[in-house]
């Protein structure tokens, strides 16, 4: 049961947060100017806080249910986890700060931070997953890492195609071809889930003794958490028609 709890939050992050990462990676392609980029960001704006918190929760589950693995996984991969965290911070700060001051240079700089942070996140996840999955370290790990990053990018494009309109939507749909936007999103989401599940199968997932206390609590609150997020998805179900607060 504990393994499913961890999988739920980790895979939830890969699918939901993965779309934000992918949109950030594709930002220069999707938005050719500051105005367009602001509209592309509106595609993820209402969701990114609620999406990244799935990873925070996965880490919380790891701390509570698999504390030994938490220490091993994070401290054993310090060379990947530090860039991952820094990329995450830089990406988020780019999103928050880009609109705080008017001006093309200010916004261009923080848009650059969003792109760099998103690529950094995707590649760090790629390196971490290929280490867990294939046991590869060093430069040779970059090939599978790049592949994982490409999947994140494709997933972001698929999500953007579902959220944007007009020319921006057409650009985002470059990968879909005739297969339909929803189907492309389902496919890229499935690809991320498969990578996540395969990596998870390689981890020594033995729950600690606190599981008997925590698991029931988590099982009770999880439907509430999903309902809260579903409400957000419902409120923002329509395609983006203009810039958001960011």
């Amino acid at each position, binding site marked *: 049961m504990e393994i499913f709890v961890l999988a739920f939050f980790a895979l939830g992050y890969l699918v939901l947060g993965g779309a934000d990462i992918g949109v950030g990676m594709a930002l220069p392609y999707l938005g050719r100017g500051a*105005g367009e980029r602001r509209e592309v960001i509106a595609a993820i704006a209402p969701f990114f806080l609620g999406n990244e918190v799935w990873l925070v929760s996965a*880490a*919380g589950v790891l701390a509570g249910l698999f504390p030994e693995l938490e220490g091993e996984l994070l401290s054993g991969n*310090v060379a990947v986890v530090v860039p991952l965290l820094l990329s995450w911070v830089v990406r988020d700060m780019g999103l928050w700060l880009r609109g705080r001051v008017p001006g093309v240079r200010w916004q261009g700089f923080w848009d650059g931070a969003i792109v760099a942070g998103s690529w950094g996140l995707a590649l760090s996840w790629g390196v971490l997953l290929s280490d867990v999955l294939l046991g590869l370290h060093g430069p040779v790990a970059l090939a599978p890492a790049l592949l994982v990053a490409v999947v994140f990018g494709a997933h972001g494009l698929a999500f953007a195609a579902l959220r944007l309109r007009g020319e921006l939507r057409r650009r985002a749909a470059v990968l879909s071809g005739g297969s339909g936007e929803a189907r492309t999103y389902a496919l890229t989401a499935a690809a991320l889930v498969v990578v996540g599940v395969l990596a998870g199968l390689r981890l020594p997932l033995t729950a600690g003794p606190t599981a008997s206390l925590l698991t029931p609590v988590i099982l009770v609150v999880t439907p509430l958490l999903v309902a809260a997020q579903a409400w957000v998805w419902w409120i923002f179900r329509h395609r983006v028609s203009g810039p958001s607060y960011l």
Partner: protein
Amino acid sequence: MDTVDLARLQFALTAGAHFLFVALTLGLATLVAVVQTWATLTRDPVHLRMTRFWGQLYIINYAMGIATGLVMEFQLGLTWSGLTEFAGNTFGASLAIETLVAFFLESTFLGLWIFGWNKLNRWAHLAAIWVVTLTAYASAFWILVSNGFLQHPVGYELADGVLRLTDFGAMVANPTAQVAFFHVLGGAMVTGGFFVAGVSAYHLRRRTAEQDLFRKSLRIGIGVALPATLFTATFGGLGFETLQPTKAAVWSGSASRIAAAQAELAAAHGPGDYLPPAGWVHAGAMTMLIAFAVMFFFAGLSAVLMLIRPAVRSLRVWHWLLTLMIPVPFVAMLGGWVFREMGRQPWAVYGLLTTAEAMSPLTQTQMRVSLTAFVTVFAALIVTNYVLLARAARRGPDAVTLGDRPIDTPSTEPALSL
């Protein structure tokens, strides 16, 4: 510096930075929620503008709180795997509950509050800020349950070299956690109150537009700061009752008590130095206590002055001083935190695991690179965010973009690319 010192410095800087932003977040969230409640009930335009103005400052501050918080959460496993392996089965439970029961909902509803402005029904929008505020309190509570366990472990057993939780209720009811929660919550209200009062006083002194809005805000700020200062001090006083023997001994300065505390731990754990660094303990506590005295005196004086209309309008010296007071609660917060955390050294889990044992098996180079990278990025971001916070505070309600138009209307700004 050896590796453990580098790891401690990294954690201290991250946690200290996080604490500064979180304190203001907790305090401001409450004030914004109360003002928005009034605005929603009365549809008073001044209170609507107040909600947007203070809400904008709240969000600027919040963003940095998240960034530092993320790094803190992961740093536990990253640099303190000895701690998570030894004690994760105990204090990890409250960390897990914090992320799932509190922070998950806080993030979700914060997104709804920011991006759902003018889109949600106004009662649903009001509910969103209250969920954000209450889950922020819950978050602080569960974090302090974790911290309380490290300060004063209860409800555990030691088996096969690791801790197991035997009594969850005892861990939650731990007085070291409970007292600290109310102390920190009060401190956050002090921080928020002085912030609102100080920014309002700036606008009153400069005679900017919206004098009515800032007079109301000034009174709210001071009206919160004075009782909150007393509340915080009360729980701070109770906190002195929950000090570990070594911290209490070092704070008392009594040579015989210090020797007795040291001898007791040496008898239990073998030879070694079990005393916290006296300089830090005293400096932290004195900073906190002096800042308290200043805040108490000044909040009391201000509570009288704010009843005198001409003073609120034009007593510029007082306005100046109120603005200068903004950093004082932050200083007090950091002082108290240094006292609490330096005072439990050399232990990570008091009496059970030393800080050196809690460290991950990392090399000196790894720690140096990690510390340099985090410090560089965070220093730049913190300076940027404080400059932006001050800028938004100075520019006043007219420049606020939060909630300034329905979210789905096309922007009136020209598309710069075309």
